[in-house]
């Protein structure tokens, strides 16, 4: 009896389980065999440059894109078989807002709730609560089209909550928003996390990942390049500090400082020294008579990890 109960606990505490998951579009391999486990109450992130396979993965988890191969279980069920039952318990915030522009703010929430089979009276109440949550109450009966980007995004997030989802999928939730709108959204997402909703977020903003995610994977070229908490990833894939030396273009003295750090990266205008102690490295640089235009000692960030793992080449 207690064994059975324990088993159930194990089964239900993993909301997403993927093993060797692949997705092909014709001959293009968007996702090339990834293993992911997301537990209940977690805030999990997919980081990666454009085209890394994040959105394809999200769409498979959202049960709107059939997988090509591998295992996938969402809320303990198989999307190929139980897609509608899984979707009934998910909230989805797509990369591009797909609000219903022919309806008002309030109607968007009400009609969306109806898609989930909620009664008319239930969606009426729900819409009022959600507009309050998204700070859109004063725009309740306004058209959707003239709303600002941040408002549309908040409405999309509010809409995704209409069915009280256990798992919320957010595909680049703050891309294209100004800092105020981003912070307001982060605040709302943090509240959701506090109230027990499991979040899966894709982003290419490192600060967003550090703010929101307990655990994340870095994806590149359809594969997982690294996995861990933000601080773990920094520890594993970067040094504690980074010393940035800025030179006039074409006058870098990289060769003279190359042995002063664990790893040195030469950029067109800067030389980055990855080291445990930035100040010590800086003293050593000065001692050798190297005179950069300016210097900066800073902590390693997730961005350093990201760039190290996925490279500095531009991906389009």
């Amino acid at each position, binding site marked *: 009896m207690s064994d059975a109960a324990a088993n159930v606990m194990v089964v239900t505490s993993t909301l997403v389980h993927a093993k060797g998951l692949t997705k092909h*579009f014709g001959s293009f391999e968007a996702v090339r065999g990834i293993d992911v486990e997301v537990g209940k109450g977690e805030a999990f992130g997919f980081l990666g440059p454009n085209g890394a396979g994040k959105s394809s993965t999200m769409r498979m988890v*959202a049960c*709107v*894109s*059939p997988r090509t191969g591998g295992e996938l279980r969402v809320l303990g069920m198989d999307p*190929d*078989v139980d*897609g*509608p*039952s899984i*979707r*009934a*318990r*998910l909230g*989805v915030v*797509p990369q*591009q807002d*797909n*609000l*219903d*522009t*022919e*309806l008002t703010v309030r*109607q968007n929430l009400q*009609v*969306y709730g*109806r*898609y*989930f*089979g*909620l009664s008319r009276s*239930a969606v009426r*109440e*729900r819409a009022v*609560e*959600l507009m*309050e*949550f998204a*700070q859109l109450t004063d725009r309740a009966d306004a058209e959707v089209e003239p709303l600002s980007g941040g408002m549309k995004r908040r409405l999309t997030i509010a*809409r995704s*909550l*209409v*069915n*009280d989802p256990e798992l919320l999928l957010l595909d680049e939730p703050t891309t294209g928003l100004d800092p105020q709108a981003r912070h307001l959204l982060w605040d*709302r997402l943090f*509240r*959701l996390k506090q*109230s027990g*909703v499991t979040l899966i977020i894709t982003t290419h903003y490192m600060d967003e990942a550090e703010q929101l995610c307990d655990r994340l994977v870095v994806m590149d070229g359809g594969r997982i390049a690294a996995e861990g908490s933000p601080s773990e990833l920094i520890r594993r894939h970067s040094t504690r500090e980074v010393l940035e030396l800025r030179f006039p273009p074409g006058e870098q003295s990289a060769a003279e400082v190359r042995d002063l750090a664990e790893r040195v990266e030469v950029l067109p205008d800067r030389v980055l020294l990855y080291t445990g102690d930035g100040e010590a490295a800086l003293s050593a640089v000065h001692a050798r008579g190297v005179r950069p235009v300016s210097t900066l000692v800073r902590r390693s960030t997730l961005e350093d990890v990201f760039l190290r793992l996925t490279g500095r080449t531009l991906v389009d």
Partner: protein
Amino acid sequence: MTRESSTQAPRTADTANPPVAPRSSNGLLFRIVPPGLYAGRSHVLVERSYLVSKRAWMSVLSGFFEPLFFLFSLGFGFGQLVTTVEGPGGPMPYAAFVAPALLAASAMNGAVFEATFNLFFKFKYAKVYDAVLATPMGPVDIALGEVTWCLIRGGLYSGGFIVVMLGFGLISSPWALLALPVCLLVALAFAAAGMAAATFMRSWHDFDLVQLAVMPMFLFSTTFYPLSVYPGWLQTVVQWTPLYHAIELMRALTTGYVGWGALGHVAYFVVMAAIGVVVAARRLGKLLLT
């Protein structure tokens, strides 16, 4: 900042387990459609269309006037020159000849354009269906819901037109009571075919092809003159077009000359509707669920 309690994500008890079980009234469809494609909730999409139309009632109302303008221009204007024409039961007034054909043609036009334009717009630009498919709803719910709305709207126009015909004494048989349900069947078939066609369209340019199919059908499928004006081989071509069958049905019902051949016309539209719905649902699923 608002109070803490009001900005917390609201969680309500009655939404904890949203019902996904299908309504039993849709049992038959459930057996022939794969479960992932149909949630039995197509009526919600009809609700959505109703809400939209309440906000755009002018454009809805305008659809009623088009066949009326044709009736006044051709039936009463042109009818002054052509007093009688050979109908199902012999010579009849031109207005009474052309009115049932306009009824059939407006059922076609309304259904085809509502289905193709709206589907294409929502699918390609407004991404409405992407949002719908993230919920338990499936592509079959979408196809059925959109076709149903087409029929409700088309049925209102047809009903209005039939009342106008009655008012001008252009109906001479109680069989005309069946004209409205037959209009709905015709609209269903054209809407389903239009939706299926819309799923193959790549850009707005392809709508010229729809126009290219609908316009000659409207002009040449015995709408304005009897089939006997054509040479034999051309008669056969015209008899293959769907609008010809719709016009034959309407003329028979409003004049009372109804034969067993009417069932053949009905069968034509049943088959057309079935093929259209299946193709549209399959294509929508394929395009949206990639």
